[in-house]
């Protein structure tokens, strides 16, 4: 019997989105548990998928038993099985943490929030699991539309940011759709596996080149790769806390996944690396993203906006790994998809917690925070060290592989960019840590008892995911060797 888990991964949150709306009309309090149940089931199903892939190889699931290339096919291999687990885990964590945040920030809209939240996750999971180019577009739009809605309900400035995002996102989606159309005209197929067999004969075709370019631009817009990142900082700054915590770790990563798929599965590495120097261009864009993101982050005094710019840089890391186009680089990219998802989860949840308690997220206002929220701030330190790349946090290990890949590729500029960006991140995070932990004193006034600051930790539903993410950052680093040898090694596309 074919395991049903690939379908369940996507269908469960989709159906529960409507259930949550129905039950939510009846009792507002139902929508939260329904969301949790849906995402837990989806998480279990994706673990089952990954487990099946690890034990018995790639899963091909034909929806409605329609065989490809006519029907829609779900394909789970090592790469997307791994990313499925990340996506469903992160969204479960965000869902758990959202309870009090949503009650506080969107008291009127709880029911709708969870419905759209589930649709958003459905979109992400669908993008990752599908083996069909057009189906991917559909899920991309589900995710994006849900994203516009979720961002628009945020604080002052959110509707405009969301509108901005909508325009850029739609342009990106158009490019992608045009690309799909061109491929379909030329080949008559939408199935990725099928396409990858037909395409090599057509590599000299101009139509194909245009389609490829459209894909790259479209996906770069969706994953906010510099210089197409302009929509991101505003959108993620003004979005409600729970929404930024969901979108920041996932939207960009899912985009990066699509990028890897198109470059190396739909098209062959030979095409993306040699026939068109796409990976080289990608590498330079990524290097720009890393430096530009870090530099602009330096100019921010709002922690959340600073994180949004850091995210632009983090997307650059992943893209750089892809752009290096060798085994170590891609290992680093895939590893960083996981690591960055966990880091961003932790950081954006922490900002949510700080906002929940103090209502202010300017850097200078963090003073005394380490005594008000000791656990949250300790996790902030861990996550910050991870973004900087201090061992043994997980961020160090992605940097390790990326630098290794850059040296393998003889791209010394990229090595320098990676190392310099570490130092810029040191400034970024220690500025925050210094404000949160040190309490400037006058000379000779350092003696004596401290001002009493009562402990006011974040509510448990919020604190727990933060601590889980923090523990993840610490343990994923140490475990990275195991993760690479058991999963990522096989996830790196064939031919490297």
């Amino acid at each position, binding site marked *: 019997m074919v395991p049903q888990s690939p379908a369940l991964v996507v269908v469960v949150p989709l159906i529960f989105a409507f259930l949550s709306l129905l039950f939510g009309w009846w009792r507002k309090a139902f929508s939260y548990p329904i969301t949790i149940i849906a995402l837990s089931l989806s998480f279990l199903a994706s673990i089952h998928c990954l487990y099946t892939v690890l034990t018995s190889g790639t899963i091909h699931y034909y929806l409605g038993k329609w065989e490809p290339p006519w029907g829609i096919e779900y394909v789970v291999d090592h790469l997307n099985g791994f990313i499925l687990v990340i996506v469903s885990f992160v969204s479960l964590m965000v869902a758990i943490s959202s309870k009090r945040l949503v009650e506080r920030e969107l008291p009127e809209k709880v029911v709708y929030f969870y419905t759209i939240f589930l649709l958003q996750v459905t979109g992400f999971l669908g993008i990752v699991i599908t083996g069909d180019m057009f189906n991917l577009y559909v899920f991309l739009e589900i995710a994006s539309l849900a994203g516009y809605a979720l961002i628009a309900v945020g604080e002052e400035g959110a509707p405009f940011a969301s509108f901005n995002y909508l325009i850029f996102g739609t342009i990106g989606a158009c490019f992608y759709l045009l690309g799909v159309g061109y491929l379909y005209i030329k080949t008559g197929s939408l199935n990725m596996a099928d396409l990858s067999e037909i395409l090599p004969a057509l590599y000299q075709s101009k139509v194909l080149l245009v389609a490829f370019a459209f894909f790259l631009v479209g996906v770069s817009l969706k994953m906010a790769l510099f210089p197409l990142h302009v929509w991101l900082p505003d959108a993620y700054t003004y979005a409600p806390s729970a929404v930024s915590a969901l979108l920041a770790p996932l939207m960009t990563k899912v985009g990066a996944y699509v990028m890897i798929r198109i470059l190396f599965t739909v098209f062959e590495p030979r095409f993306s690396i040699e026939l068109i120097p796409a990976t080289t261009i990608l590498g330079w864009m990524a290097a720009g993203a890393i430096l530009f993101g870090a530099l602009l982050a330096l100019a921010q005094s709002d922690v959340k906006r600073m994180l949004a710019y850091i995210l632009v840089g983090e997307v650059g890391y992943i893209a750089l790994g892809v752009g290096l186009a060798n085994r170590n680089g891609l290992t680093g990219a895939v590893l960083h998809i996981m690591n960055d998802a966990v880091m961003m989860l932790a950081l954006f949840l922490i900002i949510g917690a700080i906002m929940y308690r103090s209502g202010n997220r300017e850097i200078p206002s963090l003073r005394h925070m380490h005594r008000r929220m000791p656990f949250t701030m300790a996790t902030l330190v861990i996550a910050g*060290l991870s973004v900087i790349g201090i061992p043994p946090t997980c961020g160090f290990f992605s940097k390790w592989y990326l630098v290794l890949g850059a040296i393998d590729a003889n791209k010394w500029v990229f090595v320098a960019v990676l190392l310099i960006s*570490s130092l810029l991140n040191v400034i970024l995070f220690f500025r925050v840590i*210094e404000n949160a932990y*040190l309490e*400037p*004193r006058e000379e000779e006034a*350092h003696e004596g008892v401290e001002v009493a600051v009562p402990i006011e930790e974040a509510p448990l539903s919020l604190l727990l995911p933060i601590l889980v993410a923090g523990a993840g950052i610490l343990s994923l680093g140490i475990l990275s060797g195991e993760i690479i040898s058991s999963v990522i090694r096989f996830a790196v596309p064939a031919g490297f």
Partner: protein
Amino acid sequence: METMVSIRPLLAVLVTLIGAMLILFTGERNRNLREFWTILASVLKFSLVLSMIPFVLRGKMLEFTIIQLAPGVALQFRVDQFGLFFGILASALWIATSVYSIGYVRGLNEHAQTRYFFNFALCLSATMGIAFAGNLLTLFIFYEILTVSTYPLVAHKETEDAIMGGRKYLAYTLTAGVVILFGIIFVYTLTGTLDFKPGGFLLGHGSSATIIFLFAILILGFGVKAAIMPLHEWLPTAMIAPTPVSALLHAVAVVKAGVFGCLRIILYVFGPELLHQLDLWLILAYFAAFTVIVSGLYALAQDNLKRRLAFSTINNLSIIVMGAALLSPSAITGSIFHMGSHGFMKITLFFVAGAIYVKTHKENISQLDGIGRQMPLTMGAFAIGAMGIAGTPPICGFISKWYLAMGALEAKEVVFLFVLLISALLDVAYFFPIIYNSFFKAPKEDVNPHFDEASMKMVVPLVITATISLILGLVPNAFFRFFNIASMAAEKILGGM
């Protein structure tokens, strides 16, 4: 070399980590319990380290692999003679420092004591990891943990100067960390392994230009914490930290971790043979010799006692690096032994500076006239430590300098013998006036001419470390065959030649 799987090195690292957690969760509510954890962890750690000595003396290597990190590189502890030597040094001095710290922070009624003890324990945990690391990556992981966990201690006072000192410390050490990381990854791409091997493992890999480049960046990287000039600027600035921090971290753990890293690079990664081929050893030795002389001159000009001690530390660290760079048997023995003997002597001096500060709030040398009458035990210990550093027999500094001097002759480079002698003269020039003035000059008005020592929690540790310096000078093998461990390490390194 025979290896033996043993969990002891891991336990020695973990015991302080767990101690740190207990300290954190006990907090201000029960200060005595919190301090009890510190003492307990330090004693346990020391006994764990001691329990490894018999195996290592028999020529075995204790090994424990935690997890594979990348192909060919594991998170792995391997205790050899050199690592054990550093481990004994750091864990023994931590006990003394713990007792002293309690006296110090309570004497000054410091703020944020929990943070202080927590980070201290974390630092020691990292130091043990550095000492026992079996490969460059493991060493680097703990090296960076040490960097980060020292930062709150440097910025502890939270005054504007302290915060700036902390920033400067981070700027120097984390930049160095990035440079080291690059070097390590480069070595890894060349060889596919990072495991330390006595006598080095890089021979036969890469062109000579690559090797020279790698050597330069790795030594520069580790040289920051080892405060080799011109990378030393952070150390005098970091003297803003509370004195026990300066004592243990800026005389023993942190800076010695830098020196330890340099020595691992020189002796266990590149190896004597390769360095002889490319004549890199001589360049490095001259480089270090420059620091030895110049830092001695700088020290003369300092009036702040801790800053003078800091420059003396810079001076001695470079002596150690210089000794290792000479690559002759006696020089390496002397250099490793000097890590230990300098540790005991310098910590005594810092303890003295702290005791004076807690008792009288004096920080400058010009204010210390006649203080020997008020604090005879403290200043007596100071005299022993200072004379030892200048290399006066029968204090342990003499033994290490003797071996270093012999090593210079064995390497047929008489220049370095003169460097050692000049540096000893400079030591005398900047330490003896302090001893003379404090005992023989008429006390200033604000100095109490009668016996009035600092708290016993501070005086006892510093008397003990001074006594140990003395005993080590008379019987270098007195404690757990301390000297033998150093000379065995040297033999093993040169065994391949």
